[in-house]
């Protein structure tokens, strides 16, 4: 493992399928018709949809080549802070592909879907146990959707209590989607600054919390990678004025099995199954953003809900205070199977080991690189650590230059320029699934790049040099986007 993974190699060009199309070429032979030809009425016919005409080999080669341009956790370390790009065990895919699940149909009805309903019910129970809440919905499609669900629940709670409120408090170390969720629900975001040590101070919350404020949205651990250790006191301040505490659980990978958010004053929390519970992100499959709530908020959860009645399971929609339906059927079921598989594979000790190792790995990166990159907040971190480019400024090298150069070394770059509280942020989240050997390779790569910043800054300005396409002109792409081929 002394060698860095990045190297140059033969990469294939591949045109668009349209450019490969050849009239009359086809990937399948249909059987000869064994019934008499019957023409459709002309009013029902029209031009056939335009599709590229290709052989099976054309298609196989096309997608194989495109897949070789890709970079994923299966090809290398992906330390994208705030996104928890951990390895997703393949057993999860095997379970989701089981015929009974893969061929299940949402219109089959409760009677013929008992296995699927049982899985959803049990997954809700597991997530409630892990987070320390009373009830869970699995319906939201992803994290930001879960946030929206959570704030709609808070909105519905205040409406039910007879007086709607107009504002919501959001610290500068919260996730960027939080103000968007609040705005969508009609709340004005009241932004507050975190204290000098990167965490929220109760006095800052007390200064703005009033009886027209619906609550606070706290990301814990926050986007600097620190645990909000004043959370109980902050929750007391918010509760004393009748507000609720929303917890953004996107960073749950740092505290799973160690801290239960439901026991530290949080009233509603979303989870990202595609972060913490090892289901694929983005192109690897849809996300899933379950929401967990305290007892008082349970009546507002979206419908349908899964209920257990003796030994059978059913979906119920009779829930007068619900915020309604957020998704077709019951959300992204195949993602739930993968998370369920993950939880059962890991067990309770395994899940708490995940968080402990994620925190250990992040602190190892932080300590190993703090002389190489500037560390604006030098304290023990949780699952991620935030550096910046202060040391490299004298060589006119930015975070962006270093991130681009990491591609040449075979690593996905970390999150850059976020959180906004750190100028030129370089935010590393190694996750628990990277071994010490892989993490050392990453650390060595960053150190080598910092040396290049001194010795050969021009190389970094041009990086990446080994990738299929080199430095892209992001400014022109943003100013004059070409949205059609």
């Amino acid at each position, binding site marked *: 493992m002394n060698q860095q993974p990045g190297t140059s190699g033969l990469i294939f060009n591949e045109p668009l399928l349209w450019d490969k199309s050849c009239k009359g070429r086809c990937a399948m032979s249909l059987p000869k018709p064994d019934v008499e030809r019957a023409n459709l009425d002309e009013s029902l016919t029209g031009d056939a949809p335009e599709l590229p005409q290709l052989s099976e080999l054309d298609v196989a080669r096309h997608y194989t080549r495109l897949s070789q341009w890709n970079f994923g956790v299966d090809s290398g370390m992906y330390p994208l802070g705030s996104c928890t790009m951990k390895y997703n065990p393949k057993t999860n895919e095997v379970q989701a592909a089981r015929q009974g699940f893969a061929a299940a149909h949402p219109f089959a009805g409760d009677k013929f879907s008992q296995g699927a309903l049982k899985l959803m019910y049990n997954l809700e129970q597991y997530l409630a146990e892990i987070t320390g809440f009373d009830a869970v919905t699995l319906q939201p499609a992803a994290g930001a959707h879960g946030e929206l669900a959570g704030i709609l629940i808070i909105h519905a709670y205040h409406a039910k209590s007879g007086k709607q409120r107009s504002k919501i408090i959001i610290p500068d170390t919260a996730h960027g989607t939080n103000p968007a969720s609040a705005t969508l629900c009609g709340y004005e975001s009241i932004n507050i600054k975190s204290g000098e040590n990167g965490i929220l101070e109760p006095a800052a919350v007390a200064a703005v919390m009033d009886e027209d404020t619906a609550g606070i949205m706290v990301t814990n651990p926050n986007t600097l990678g620190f645990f909000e250790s004043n959370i109980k006191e902050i929750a007391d301040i918010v509760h004393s004025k009748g507000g609720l505490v929303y917890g953004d659980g996107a960073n749950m990978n740092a505290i799973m099995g160690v801290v239960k958010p439901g026991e530290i004053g949080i009233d509603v929390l979303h989870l990202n199954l595609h972060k913490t519970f090892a289901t694929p992100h983005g192109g690897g499959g849809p996300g899933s953003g379950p929401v967990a709530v305290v007892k008082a908020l349970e009546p507002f959860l979206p419908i349908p809900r899964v209920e257990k009645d003796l030994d059978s399971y059913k979906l119920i929609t009779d829930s007068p205070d619900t915020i309604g339906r957020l998704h077709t059927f019951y959300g992204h079921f195949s993602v739930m199977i993968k998370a369920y598989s993950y939880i059962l594979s890991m067990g309770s000790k395994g899940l708490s080991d995940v968080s402990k190792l994620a925190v250990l790995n992040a602190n190892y990166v932080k300590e190993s690189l703090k002389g190489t990159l500037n560390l604006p907040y030098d304290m023990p971190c949780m699952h991620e650590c935030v550096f910046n480019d202060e040391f490299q*400024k004298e060589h006119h090298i930015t975070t*962006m230059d270093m991130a681009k150069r990491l591609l040449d070394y075979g690593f996905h770059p970390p999150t850059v*320029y976020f959180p*906004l509280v750190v100028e030129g942020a370089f935010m590393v989240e190694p996750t628990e699934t990277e071994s010490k050997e892989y993490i050392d390779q990453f650390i060595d790569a960053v150190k080598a790049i910092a040396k290049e910043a001194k010795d050969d800054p021009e190389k970094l300005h041009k990086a990446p040099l080994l990738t299929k396409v080199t430095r892209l002109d*992001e*400014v022109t792409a*943003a*100013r004059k986007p070409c949205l059609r081929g």
Partner: protein
Amino acid sequence: MKEISDLNLPEDVKYTKDHEWAKLDSDIVTIGINDYAQDQLGEIVFVELPEVGDTFSEGDEFGSVESVKAVSEMYIPISGEITEINEALEDAPELVNESCYDSGWIIKVKPADVSELDNLMDKPAYLDMLKG
């Protein structure tokens, strides 16, 4: 990025702590972001503008500037009504980088109370703030 001593900070405009500038011409105040702000943001790719006729109070957010690195809000230095917006920025946001006090101006405002301009900083005071 520029050193503070290299910044272009004209004497005939007023500055805010959030790095906007404002200049009174007869009864209309022209507002933009200053050289420090455009330099820190880097190449600007989009400017979100208010609409003519919108009214704001001093300190309100009136739009945002987006670079490849980040989106930053702009805060209005004076209360009043928008009389004109720089429509050229829609197709050429780079004007803010190239000419932040001239063709890269952002809005023009008919002030509700011109004396609010007295709350802003002149060049020496703004420089002192930057130097901390």
